[in-house]
């Protein structure tokens, strides 16, 4: 006893050879059609537009989410850089002006320095203050009544 499937297929078994030839012909024609189809890398007729499109699809479009993420990260970094540069530029371009009190202090210091320099005789740097001199010439040994 046979199933309906077995009965039906058995009736067409003798067509198997024709079907094999048909199958091989179809596959051969499809292989030839695929082989002769122009590709972006054909040397004879360079298809630059197709080449660029293929590069775009394989390098960029296929991993567009990764590229978008990288772009967002770079945008953040660039924004932070620009903000930091602005802050530094503000600091450098506007030096803090001296306040009047500071200027007054500078003037007072200058006056004192000038008075100090005027009152003190300049001694020769080579002669020490208590160099060996006749005792009578030393100011510290002069008699008080002289």
């Amino acid at each position, binding site marked *: 006893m046979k199933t*309906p499937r077995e009965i039906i297929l058995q009736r067409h078994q003798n067509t198997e050879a024709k079907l094999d030839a048909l199958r091989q012909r179809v596959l051969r024609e*499809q292989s030839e059609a695929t082989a002769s189809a122009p590709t972006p890398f054909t040397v004879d007729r360079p298809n630059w537009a197709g080449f660029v499109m293929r590069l775009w699809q394989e390098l960029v479009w296929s991993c567009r989410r990764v590229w978008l993420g990288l772009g967002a990260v770079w945008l953040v970094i660039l924004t932070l850089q620009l903000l930091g540069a602005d802050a530094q530029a503000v600091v450098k371009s506007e030096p803090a002006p001296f306040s009047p009190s500071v200027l007054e202090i500078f003037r007072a210091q200058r006056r004192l320095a000038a008075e100090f320099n005027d009152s003190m005789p300049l001694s020769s740097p080579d002669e020490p203050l208590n160099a060996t001199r006749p005792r009578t010439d030393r100011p510290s040994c002069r008699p008080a009544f002289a």
Partner: protein
Amino acid sequence: MVVVTCDETLPVREARTGEPDAWDTLFKRYQLPLYAYVFELVRDEQAGLDIVQETFISAVRNIGRLRDDQKFGSWLFSIAHQKWIQHWRKRRPEDRLENEQAEQLIDHEFDPEEWLIRKEQEEAFMAVLNQLPLPQRSVLLLHFLEEFSLEEIASIAGLPLGTVKSRLHYAKKALRKLVEENL
């Protein structure tokens, strides 16, 4: 070399990449059931071979449209069914494949294994099968040859599920009558 395992894992994924051996395996698996299906509808050897060839060519060109690799068989038969419809409209434009109103039927599980035909009944079985109207014959062949589910047959033939059930019901009824007559 593409090998088909015992659980019939067809190399559809390899075929998508254009591997010739994969296509050879796929076509070899389906060429006879496909031809038998088409022949039993057109009843002409050359027309049947032409339709099978057109089906194979269309499958290679449009494999990208197949969404589920597991449905390759039903997808291939749906292409063949469409090619048969086009052939039918060219040859018999005045005839129409009537789409009878689907009845509310009990959802019987149609088990082809339950149909065991004795050798002396084989000719009568084929005669009854060929007498069936084309719409019923089509769904019965799909169920016998590849054990497609009702949903798959509905998808292949582009019919509502109720219509498929109705056609199978009447086709089974006619065949069962034959079996009972010959007991």
